[in-house]
């Protein structure tokens, strides 16, 4: 899991960035939808990203928040798995559910990343 953490964070950042880029090009409605998905994922930063944008906050801050949220999830799953493996008091179902939550968060991040790349490619085509 430890090796996956940074990847998850990066994916989350990329996704958030993609969402931001999409909103910047006027794709506001898709952005709003993506924000909802981010909330479900528990990343939580997607919502604050929108807020930061309204307040003129930096895109990188939002990206960092999203990354941290996902990283926290992955670290929690990692810690409870380690606790269970070392004979700690963690319940098996607690460990599995935390892994599941981290997995859903990661998938959400990847979905946002895909949207970001899509928006980026769209913009590149416009320039050509």
């Amino acid at each position: 899991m430890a090796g996956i953490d940074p990847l998850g964070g990066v994916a989350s950042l990329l996704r958030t960035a993609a969402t931001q880029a999409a909103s910047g090009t006027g794709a506001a409605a898709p952005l709003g939808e993506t924000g909802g998905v981010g909330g479900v994922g528990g990343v939580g930063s997607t919502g604050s990203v929108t807020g930061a944008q309204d307040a003129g906050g930096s895109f990188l801050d939002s990206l960092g928040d999203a990354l941290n949220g996902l990283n926290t999830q992955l670290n929690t799953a990692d810690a409870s798995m380690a606790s269970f493996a070392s004979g700690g008091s963690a319940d098996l179902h607690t460990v599995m559910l935390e892994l599941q939550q981290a997995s859903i968060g990661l998938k959400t991040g990847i979905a946002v990343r895909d949207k970001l790349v899509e928006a980026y490619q769209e913009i590149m085509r416009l320039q050509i």
Partner: protein
Amino acid sequence: MSVFDTIRIAASGLTAERFRMDVASSNIANQRSTRNAAGTGPYQPVAPFFQAMTMTADGGQGVAATGLVAIGGDPIRVYDPTHPDADKQGFVAYPDVDIAAQMADLMGAARSYSMNATVTAAAKQSALDAIELGR
């Protein structure tokens, strides 16, 4: 109103049912225990009781085991003067554990655990479906 709220509530149910299984297991394991942990008498059969607790911002309620209540009648007295825990009249007190009821409770707990696991699976599938919406 997060998908994770559903999972957290179901997780509380899973934990509660695990505890119920623990208690049934304890009652079954101690059906012939003539001394409780403190050594003051025969084992006392117990049953857990549960309480709803608000777990999510929008009022979703999970469950928590709040304690144990003694069940069963008076200890069963069996005449066995050679037993180290026999009283002056030669009777040994065994806990009044209703094994049939305990087994039924164990099965109920196992089934309830499965139900809560099904809820978490549904919540997970909903989240994955939601992600698919963005594709």
